[in-house]
């Protein structure tokens, strides 16, 4: 936390906290791993209610950027501001409590818990905060939350597996569970790391439909995605990351036409 203040109070830094309708503002973020620049001079604004896609070739720094946003990595320079609050230097759980949820690329579920419990954990976290010592509140008595959890699970198509252990699920089902775990928190900002990777076409379409539905609800989303079909059917705006830098930004149509993007990314990808 003090690190965040340090950055914010750094004399002469006085960085930009973004404009009024900006939810997430990434300000001049640098990150390097033993000399290798993973991110440099990254500036990014995500506006209220939009679905913002970040695309880029492998190794472009997309996951690093996401990790910087949720507090897994500390940037060498720069800061991430969410809704006027500096996230940089905060712990992951604090960032989540502010309303930023992340859906992981490789499913990071709780393998030894049931599907329903997997969704109940983030639901409880949303309701009770980062720590609540209530040892005698029976988990099975949480009627309202459970109904909600079941609804969310139904929306991702897992209603038939409520009591299954997450460890025995298929990879695709785990991804859907991941999504449900993000959705149940009704986050102000949902970060999705390749939500459809490894899914069959049919499932991908279902996921797109689901994400569209959520969009109607007004949730702000950042999606990292490889699948251009997904990107162009969902994104309001797209940022293209290559070699750790943002090389282009704009609406899907703008990006489609951008020669730099074509060169760096689309060309090779759409073979």
């Amino acid at each position, binding site marked *: 936390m003090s690190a965040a203040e340090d950055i914010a109070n750094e004399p002469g830094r006085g960085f930009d906290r973004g404009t009024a309708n900006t939810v997430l503002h990434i300000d001049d973020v640098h990150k390097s791993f033993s000399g290798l620049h993973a991110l440099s001079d990254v500036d990014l604004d995500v506006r209220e209610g939009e679905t913002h896609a970040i695309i880029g070739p492998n190794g472009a720094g997309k996951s690093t950027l996401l990790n910087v946003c949720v507090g897994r990595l500390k940037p060498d320079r720069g800061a991430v501001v969410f809704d006027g609050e500096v996230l940089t230097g905060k712990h992951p*759980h604090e960032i989540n409590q502010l309303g930023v949820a*992340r859906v992981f690329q490789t499913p990071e579920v*709780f393998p030894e818990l049931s599907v329903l419990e997997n969704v109940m954990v*983030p639901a409880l976290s949303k309701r009770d905060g980062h720590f609540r010592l209530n040892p*005698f509140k029976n*988990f099975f008595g949480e009627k309202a939350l459970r109904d909600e959890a079941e609804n969310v699970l139904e929306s991702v198509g897992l209603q038939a597996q409520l009591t299954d252990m997450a460890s025995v699920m298929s990879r695709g089902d785990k991804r859907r569970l991941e999504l449900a775990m993000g959705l149940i928190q009704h986050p102000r900002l949902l970060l999705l790391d390749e939500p459809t990777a490894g899914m069959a076409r049919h499932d991908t379409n279902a996921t797109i439909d689901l994400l569209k539905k959520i969009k109607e609800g007004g949730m702000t989303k950042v999606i990292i995605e490889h699948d251009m079909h997904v990107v162009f059917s969902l994104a309001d705006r797209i940022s293209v990351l290559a070699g750790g830098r943002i090389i282009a930004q704009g609406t899907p149509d703008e990006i489609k036409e951008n020669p730099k993007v074509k060169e760096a990314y689309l060309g090779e990808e759409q073979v």
Partner: protein
Amino acid sequence: MDRKTNLKDWTLFLGFAAVVLCLPIILDPIGANYPDLLQKIAIFGIFAIGFNILFGLTGYLSFGHAAFIGVGSYMSLWSFKLLTMNVLPAIAFSVILAGMFAYLIGFVSLRRSGIYFSILTLAFAQMSYSLAYSVLTPITNGETGLQTRAIRTDPATSLLDGDIRIIDQALGIQEASVPTTHFFGMAMSGYTGFYFCAVLLIICFFIAQRLTNSNFGMMLKAIKSNQNRLNYTGIHTRPYLIAAFVISGMYAGLAGSLMAVTDPIAGAERMQWTASGEVVLMTILGGVGTLVGPVLGAGIIKYAEQKVSSWNEGILDSFFSFLPEGLQHFMSGLGALFVGEGWHTTLGLLFMIIVIFLPGGIMEGIRRIAAVFARKSKSNNTSAAAPQPAE
């Protein structure tokens, strides 16, 4: 589902309570029906249940829980010596002090995880043990152990050798020699002592069961399952871990206190790392993460320690007396490797066999057997009702 789960929980709880209260009858055929062993099973059952709240739910393996046993025992003894022979304040103070001590150790140790956490707890417990054995002799009476004494007549007598028992004295209770511990007049030795421990064991079981099924319990399980993910879900895991550590420390404190209640003496060796190891073994032997398993494990290990160690060669000889003489000697010689003074061998082999073949402990074994029977009865039913294709 609500009602079904509830029903299952209550059945388990009532079944457990019934078995615990009937232990004297159940254990009689194997020669284990005597107060001391019964008390020890109940006390170590409490210890193991508490340990399982930490280890079974969160996966954090503490090698220092014996320290809390020691704290509980010493605190109880001092309550007997300074306040009253009634066990109520002793138990209350012990549990509170053990909780505080656990908070201190947990606060520091839980900054690390995995084997580093284990070694930190081990280090704290070993330091407690070493100091209690030597430098802290004025508080712990070192090797001899802290004991209750008669009321001192001369204020110059050290408190180790003469008690004051302020409350009892104020109440004007006359003491003949060294008084015994009691719960409002109910003596805490023998079978009453066992039933006292048994009731506490049942209460502890109930609490642990509620904890396990609570939101809190689920968070602990989530920590074990994937602590990293939990952070990104907005949960601050450390307070949960500290809470679990303190609760299990309080269970250990209660167990230590009960050891002093049923037998008012407290020695430093209760805090040695081997004692911490013992509870790990109990938990794993019975079944980590299960509610009944740790108690079962505690019972088996205490039985082995008390009874298997007493089967000396004389008993072996008479057991094998139906064999021809040469064979009899051979068999009792072979048996002596495993029972009597060789009982440690049996214990070691038992751990190996359990871990190799039944990683989920005895409870998993029971589940497997139950599953076999269930399948059998099911297949009987289905074959009787209508021919179904094989699975």
